Structure formats: structure tokens, C-alpha cells
């Protein structure tokens, strides 16, 4: 009887260790992508870092409940989207708690572009394009922005986006279409 209990305890400990190792791998693999999505959504480095940590903390707490119906990335992205949503909601409700936003302006955000083998003129043109895309992203609704960033920054499939956002694929397509129309207008209107 005692030997059985000891074996069970050892098995549980081993299972926990395996789960912890798995989770560490998930963190190492997906943390940059989650951070990138949150950074693009908020344009605030500190906030993106905080939300990323909260996301993995929440994921760690609920890791046991993750059944693997979707990929770990989709599951994590769903947590990140919800955290970001909660953050904006709380901020709207309690706006007096923070008087200033730390989001960088569009010019600064557009500066991040590797020069590669481009000429100075091409680089300038590319920065201008990036700035215009940022401007359109800024004007999008929360859902449109999320869908747009998941599709064109994280290059997720529509079905994955649908699972991560909890929307139907049709709705995702509609949001994406509106977002693209806005980007197109921004790019074409100021040419």
C-alpha cells in the first residue's frame, strides 16, 4: 500500500516535471511572437513586456487545462488578445490612474526598417509606406487591428485567427477586408 502511494507520488512528480519542461519549451518558442503581437498592438514597449509576462503567467496557471484542441500558439494568442482587451477596457474605465501614454509615435515606429540592399531613396520610400500603414492601423477598430496584425505581421491563417479571436472565419474575412480597404485608401489617397 505504502509502496503504491510512493509510486503514485513519484509518477505525479515526474508528470509535473514533464509539464514544466513542456511549458518552458512553449515559453521559449512563442514568447517573441506574443511580444511582437502585443508590441504592434500597443506600440508601447513596457506595456507589451508586462502583458507578455501576464500572458505566460496566466498560461502557466492554466497549463494543466490546455487540452491541445488548438495549437499552443493559438491558445497563447487568445490569452494575449483577451489580456490586451481587458487592459484597454480597464484603462477606459480608470483613465485617471494613468495620465500619459507611453506609446511611441508613428514616426518613431516607422524608423525600424532594416536597410538591406536598398538605396537611401528606396529606404525613405519604404519608411513612408510603413508610416502610412501605421497610420491606418491606428485608425482601425480593436478587432480590425487585431485581425490585421495577426494576418500580416504574424502571418496566421484565417482559421487560426478565427480560433484565436473567437470569431467566425467569415467575420475575420470581413474585418480583414475593411482593414485592407483602409490601408489601401491611406496608401493611395496620399500618393
Amino acid at each position, binding site marked *: 500500500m505504502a509502496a503504491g502511494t510512493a509510486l503514485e507520488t513519484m509518477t505525479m512528480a515526474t508528470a509535473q516535471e514533464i509539464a514544466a519542461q513542456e511549458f518552458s519549451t512553449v515559453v521559449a518558442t512563442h514568447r*517573441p511572437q506574443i*511580444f*511582437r503581437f502585443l*508590441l*504592434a498592438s500597443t506600440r508601447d*514597449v*513596457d506595456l*507589451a*513586456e508586462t502583458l507578455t509576462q501576464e500572458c505566460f503567467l496566466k498560461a502557466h496557471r492554466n497549463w494543466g487545462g490546455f487540452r491541445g484542441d488548438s495549437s499552443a500558439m493559438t491558445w497563447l494568442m487568445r490569452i494575449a488578445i483577451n489580456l490586451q482587451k481587458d487592459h484597454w477596457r480597464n484603462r477606459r474605465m480608470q483613465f485617471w490612474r494613468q*495620465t*500619459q501614454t507611453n506609446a511611441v509615435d508613428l514616426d518613431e*515606429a*516607422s524608423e*525600424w*526598417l*532594416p536597410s538591406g540592399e536598398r538605396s537611401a531613396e528606396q529606404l525613405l520610400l*519604404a519608411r513612408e*509606406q*510603413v508610416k*502610412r*500603414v*501605421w497610420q491606418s492601423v491606428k485608425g482601425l477598430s480593436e478587432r480590425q487591428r487585431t485581425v490585421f496584425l495577426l494576418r*500580416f*505581421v504574424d*502571418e496566421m491563417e484565417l482559421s487560426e485567427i478565427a480560433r484565436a479571436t473567437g470569431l467566425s472565419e467569415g467575420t475575420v*474575412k470581413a474585418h*480583414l*477586408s475593411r482593414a*485592407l480597404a483602409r*490601408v*489601401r485608401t491611406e*496608401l*493611395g489617397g496620399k500618393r
Partner: protein
Amino acid sequence: MSFMKRLGKSAEGIDGKAGLEAVEAQDQALKQALANFRCSVLAWSEAEFGRERTPAKTVRQRSWRLAAGWALGCVLVAGGAGGGVFEHQQKVQAARTAEAARAAEQQKVIAEQRAREEEDLLANVDSDVSREVPSAMEPLAQLMTDDETR
């Protein structure tokens, strides 16, 4: 296949080859802009992800600024509110004084009017009484005058 087609939109309604080429060119520009945008976000994210942070200092600086901002804000609000209240009290006081002066003036006018009315009444009464009651000694006085002349 055009960029919009891949997103579930067809190129229906576009007239002729020129229109189609224009849409293709637009698609190309959009594709290029989105690729540049992705590159930019990736570069920014990678740079920030690998950067060391000094949260304590930032938080302290921010909290100091926040506290200073709040203090200044509170002083301004308190000053504004205090000034407003003082101004209001001054106005109320002035209005009360003016009201009291007006009331006193009105009382004075009423008192003067009453005094004038009483005086008039008394004057009327005097004149009425003097007309109705003859002097009791007047006939006798007349006789006496007559006797003396005789």
C-alpha cells in the same frame, strides 16, 4: 492570382485590361507596403525583445513625474475652485448689501409717505372740526360790541 483574390474578393466589375493592370499595380504597392510594415515590426520587436530593461529607474522617474503632475493639477484645481468660491461669496455679499440698502430705502420712503398721509389727515380733521364747531362766545362778543357803540 491578385492579392485581393486571395482574400476572397474577385476582380469583377473591372473594365478592360487597363483597369485590371491598375488593380494589379495597386495590389503590388499594397503587398510591398505590407511586407515593409512586417519587416519593420519584426526588426523593432527583435531589438526591444533583446534589450535589457531598467524598470525600477523608469518607474521611479515616471512616478515622480506623475506625482508632480498630480500636485500641480491639484493646486490649479484648488486655486480655480477657491477663486471661484471667493468670487461667488463676494457677489453674494454685494447682492445682500445692495438688497439691504434697497429695503432700507424702501422702508424710509414708506415711512415718509405714512407720515405725510397722517399729517394730511390731521390737517383735514382740524379744518373740518374748525368749520363745524362755532366759537361759543362769538354772538355775545358781537352784542358787546353793539352796546358799546350805542
